[in-house]
């Protein structure tokens, strides 16, 4: 079982390498320049716990190889977002994040973004952790920088549609509300110039493994998350709307995938042979699913809805 297979490939062949670099730089910037309340020791402990958990799960589920990248991303994201009094809870978050990928699956696709479910479940069930959405401040330059860096990551992940759709819907809702309230536009601009929101948009909702497989599905998903986030933030007046909303809306992903089938995202570029087999397999399974769908669509009302959603009607 080769360890760290990515070392043999070029550094940026996988979008996650870029993501890891950016998250690590943000963490260093946050700790040094913005006084993030996370000690180096704790950050290291969180990252190591995530990696060890990934390793243990790889063994337990008898996977072919240990891939540290996803766990590293979860660990770094937790360092950036999660704050807790006790280190035990911070480490528990790392364990939950990684284990959730293995346990909470629907049709071999994990349901929740690991970092998101770790934070949300601990906030909901312990009340002893928190996220400080204001910690980044609103320095325009910094927002810009993060947007650029994040943009690069999502472009490389070839699933930037969900990010752009989310930010477009969320901006429309935030601006719309301010215009309706006749507030000066500096207010919605200030709200959108938030580092935490950018981090969410470019590094969390963009996770290609937990968003719907089809493009139209991802756009519907982005709308649901944006609306939920806005509703929690501006109708219920609670903080961290995007985080709560993503966790809740993730439950709709299997439904969206069932209604709007498409190929699942794979991180790694396979070699031609492997890829050909994979494409063949996925085509066959898609055709099989569609046949299944047709059968299920014996009911006329449902069929119209499905055709509509697929853009066929």
């Amino acid at each position, binding site marked *: 079982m080769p360890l760290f297979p990515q070392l043999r490939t070029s550094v940026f062949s996988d979008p996650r390498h870029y993501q890891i670099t950016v998250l690590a730089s943000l963490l260093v910037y946050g700790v040094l320049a913005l006084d993030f309340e996370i000690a180096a020791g704790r950050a290291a402990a969180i990252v190591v716990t995530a990696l060890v958990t990934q390793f243990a799960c790889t063994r337990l589920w008898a996977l072919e190889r240990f891939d540290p990248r996803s766990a590293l991303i979860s660990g770094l994201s937790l360092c950036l977002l999660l704050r807790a*009094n006790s280190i035990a809870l911070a480490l528990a978050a790392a364990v939950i994040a990684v284990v959730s990928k293995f346990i909470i699956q629907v049709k071999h696709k994990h349901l929740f973004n690991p970092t998101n479910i770790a934070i949300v479940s601990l906030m909901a069930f312990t009340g002893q952790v928190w996220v*400080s*959405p*204001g910690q980044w401040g609103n320095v325009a330059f910094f927002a810009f920088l993060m947007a650029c860096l994040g943009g690069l990551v999502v472009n490389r992940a070839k699933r930037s549609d969900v990010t752009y759709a989310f930010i477009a819907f969320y901006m429309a809702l935030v601006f719309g509300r301010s215009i309706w309230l*006749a507030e000066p536009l500096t207010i919605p601009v200030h709200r959108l110039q938030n580092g935490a929101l950018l981090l969410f948009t470019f590094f969390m909702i963009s996770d290609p493994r937990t968003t719907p497989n089809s493009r139209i599905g991802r756009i519907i998903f982005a709308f649901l998350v944006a609306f939920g986030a806005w509703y929690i933030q501006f109708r219920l007046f*609670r903080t961290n709307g995007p985080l709560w909303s993503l966790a809740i809306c993730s439950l709709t992903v299997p439904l969206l995938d069932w209604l709007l089938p498409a190929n699942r995202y794979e991180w790694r570029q396979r070699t031609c042979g492997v890829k050909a087999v994979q494409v063949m397999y996925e085509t066959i399974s898609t055709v099989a699913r569609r046949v299944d769908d047709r059968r299920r669509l014996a009911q006329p009302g449902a069929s119209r809805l499905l055709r509509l959603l697929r853009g066929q009607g």
Partner: protein
Amino acid sequence: MAKADTKLFNKASQVVLVRQGDRTVLTMANDFRGDPKEFAVVIPVPVVLQKEQVHIGDKALLDHLDAYSAPRLVEYFDEDPCSVLYDRLAMATPAAPGLAGGQMASSRSKSLGVTIEARYTVGEYDILILSALQSSGLETWLRENGYRIPAGASSVLSSYIRQNLKFFVAKVNLKEQARLGYTVLRPIQVAYESPKFMLPIRLGMVNADGPQELFVYALTRNGRVEATNYRTVKLPTGDELPLYVKDRFADFYKAMFTHQAMKENMSAIFTEYAWDMAWCDPCAADPLSPNELRNLGVFWLNDSGDPQRGAPRPPIPIRSGPQNAFITRLHVRYDAAHFPEDLVFQETSDRSNFQGRYVLRHKWTGEGSCEAATRYRADLPRKQEREAQSLAALTGWDINDIRRTMKVAPPPPEPVAWWQRIWK
């Protein structure tokens, strides 16, 4: 004793925000010194407040809270280096109060779309709760009724009206004030239930000349309070400063705050104190008694028969008090350019203690001649230079002025490298 006058900051407001769940008790204090006839407040509130939800508090409670949570000086006396052990003495100085004013009279007009939802007199204040359909109507109504509200208020009022907020309007009832015999205006307290954990600051910024100062004392059950839509930053703390700061502590605190606010681009909120209200170390003032806390609105103290429930025991309880209240003192200097939206807060479960605390070290002047004493004396100029540097860094004061006041010589220049002399 170092003393900082409570009028340290101009145009300062003090607000106590007691919150658990959606229940909020808001205490607003002001140091309005003008003619009471001129005094009025207009505050957007989320619900129509009934008479029983309004109470007039005691300014002394806020002063106590201020003194308890203010940034403090600690003095240490260097011991004979030939022996070891430190003695210490604590002291502190409070900060500042105030609340914006306006103007008032009485009469009303339905045609302006303004509804008086409630009207009552509490203590020396006549209070109205208004709802409005249109900002221009409300503005006209307030003007016609003698409130001198600033031009441009209408644009701010309109967004509050659309959010269905009500307006809490208070003026001084001179007869009641004379009957009650109070010469200073007492703080107004309101209790309400709303998911909104925020402070409206936008009305106060209309037509304001220059930035305003706000102190928020948040009293919560679980832990520290922070802003969610602005950066919350801890005030620098723990630095060792030159001894003369003792006599100029007020100047120091003011200069430091200004300098730090500028370093954060004038757009951050500062945490000056975060502590379990059961104790303090060192204490700037005694912790508040359960009774004082209840008067400030800490309603959950009634809920538990045992006031010590729920919180871990402090390692060194200096003085005893209720355990399940946590105070966060926030200090913000705001203006419209840097604070476009109202302040929104969240309560975290962070119970770690923080205080703005500055250290003065009296040097040891004994005659000892052990090796440690020689080293101690040799090290003194460097220590003093370090103190001067810290003070300069915190306040932005000129380092040479500081050295002059300290009566110390600047450190000898760094030895010049040979290559620096070649092309002189």
